[in-house]
């Protein structure tokens, strides 16, 4: 199953490679991994999307907890949570296709950030499903370049991940 794990870790050099190293050394999957400092500059928050059986996910969580730089973590998949990822996609936009692309972008609540005679850069925010659906709609033959931020997530309601 797909799990979204949020990790608070010391904002120190090397902390990221400890996490990345753990995943590669133990052969765990990483779908995506994002990291950036939080409002507390001494802490970074990382979101890891991984796939594994319940047993593997349990091990991943325990092994992450064992890392000395990890302060706290939570498996968001266990609670109600919001997942967001940002994507920018450069697409071929010529002739009548340009109008169609604009309409699709509106339907998906995306934005066109850059326009040339033959291309658009479209920004889209959403969860994995929405982004994949949009890419499918565009059709691979029209896509010039894709960049995705990787998922970030936060629990709904009052619950929070903090020190």
């Amino acid at each position: 199953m797909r799990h979204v794990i949020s990790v608070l870790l010391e904002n120190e050099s090397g902390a990221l490679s400890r996490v990345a190293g753990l995943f590669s050394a133990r052969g765990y999957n990483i779908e995506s991994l994002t990291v950036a400092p939080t409002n507390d500059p001494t802490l970074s928050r990382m979101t890891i999307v991984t796939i594994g059986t319940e047993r593997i996910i349990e091990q991943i969580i325990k092994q992450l907890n064992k890392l000395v730089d990890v302060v706290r973590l939570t498996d968001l998949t266990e609670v109600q949570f919001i997942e967001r990822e940002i994507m920018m996609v450069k697409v071929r936009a010529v002739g009548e296709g340009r109008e169609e692309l604009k309409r699709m972008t509106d339907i998906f609540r995306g934005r066109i950030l850059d326009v040339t005679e033959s291309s658009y850069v479209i920004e889209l925010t959403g969860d994995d499903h929405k982004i994949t659906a949009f890419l499918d709609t565009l059709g691979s033959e029209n896509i010039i370049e894709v960049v995705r931020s990787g998922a970030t997530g936060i629990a709904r309601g009052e619950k929070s991940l903090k020190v």
Partner: protein
Amino acid sequence: MELSGGEVLMEALKEEGVEYIFGYPGGAVLHIYDALYQQNSVKHILVRHEQAATHAADGYARSTGKPGVVLVTSGPGATNAVTGIATAFLDSIPMVIISGQVPSRLIGSDAFQEVDCVGITRPCVKHNFLVDSLENFASTIKKAFHVATSGRPGPVVIDIPKDLTTPDIKVAFEYPDHVEMRSYSPPELGHPGQIRKAVDLILSAKRPIIYSGGGVVLGGASEQLCALTKELGFPITQTLMGLGAFPASDKQNIGMLGMHGTYEANMAMHECDVLIAIGARFDDRITGELDKFCPHAKIVHVDIDPASISKNVVVDVPIVGHVTQVLDAMVALVKESSRRPEKTDMESWWAQIREWQAMDSLGYDLSTEVIKPQAVVESLWRATKGDAFITSDVGQHQMWAAQFYGFDKPRRWINSGGLGTMGFGLPSAIGVQLAHPDATVACITGEASIQMCIQELSTCLQYNTPIKIINLNNRYMGMVRQWQEFGYEKRYSHSYMDALPDFVKLAESYGHVGMRIDKPSDVDDALKEALSLTDRVVFMDFITDQSENVYPMIEAGKGHHEMRLNPRKEPA
């Protein structure tokens, strides 16, 4: 007090009560060596290779319970230390390794003797630090000792750039008296509800067995383990790393389990209905084929590391906590309770075990022609009254040492179980002997393993560590040969040890006593003589049977009940 980086380190080591530091100098640690020179509270042991520094510190740590301390230079100094760091990591040995690094401004420039030490050691340390300012050095050392010794212990590396130890740059020194780390809080107390649940299960067992591991030794819980085992009257088996935590000579002890465990221990594992795992981690050399592991058992698992629980084998009652505390609580609950397993159940279980024992799975044929390696270990046990510290290398000799030297006390059996590092035996013995100057320390080794750190014979002379080297010389990488015999139709590919040195002369050239023993009838006397030379290193080269194999053996894909036995044990 204003101190330079080198002096900060010396003061901090003094505060930590460090007696010995095992090291080797080089450019990046010259300032530190200068500070070392100007103090006399910490004694430095100059090894001949940095791998040996880590193994010696490791032996010191294993035999005392105190952290071992290592000092190496940058680049090749650090990379040479990696094998020993990984060895300590896999066996959870507390160790602090200080490595010099090139000056801060050169980091990342491929400077002379620069390697990314923090990067290279990351996967084989409990934690590591690159010191970024002299102000943080003392607190980093404090943290390193704290992390290395608490929770599940392990090695911690401190990489310190050379510019931070410059003699004329000083900082106000104050050694912190405690550590604040919001991201590190090892578990201590086992959950009372879980402990109660475990005891309930244990007291309802019909065919119980206690399986204890290195965690009991590391956690100093030998006494508690004995109390529980005695109170329950259950059979107990230990892992390679757990030997000595429960006396080998006690009737409840049914020996080591696993790949080269006894028939009775492995059979009891297979047949048990309640398995009580204490400070053990269900390593693949213990479990055999996982699908066949303890098919009838409900499992209790006590461990300080939550990640050890249900990693390889899913358990029924996990207890995360310090093993002494958890065992104390268990003993108290058992004593409180009037319940005990049914007497008749226990009697028939023990009867079954005694029947398996009667098989004498460790039995071997003595010879008048050729020395049997097992017999040497047994003779050593007699000659030392079972009370020596025994270090070992890796191979058949290691298994025979584990099988035939009955350890009655914890911290006496010093071997690289997790990583299986050839070359560990001799340097670790140096650390053990320094920690226990009056004790008998013997290194049971093989002619292949001993050559991996043979240069340390020189260190032995310099520091007068009179260890006894028991070289079980079968002219083969015996363990490799054994696997080739069983699994590769005796194609002995590169496992013959050709061109061996004359070990007697070699020992003599290092200033030690050398002995060559090739007759079975000479073994006892030779050992007696060697042991009487209490102030000398004696290298005993025992020419042993080349074809001897370690039995029993659980081969790949097999379960505990499918051991390969010594052919003389198989029914005709």
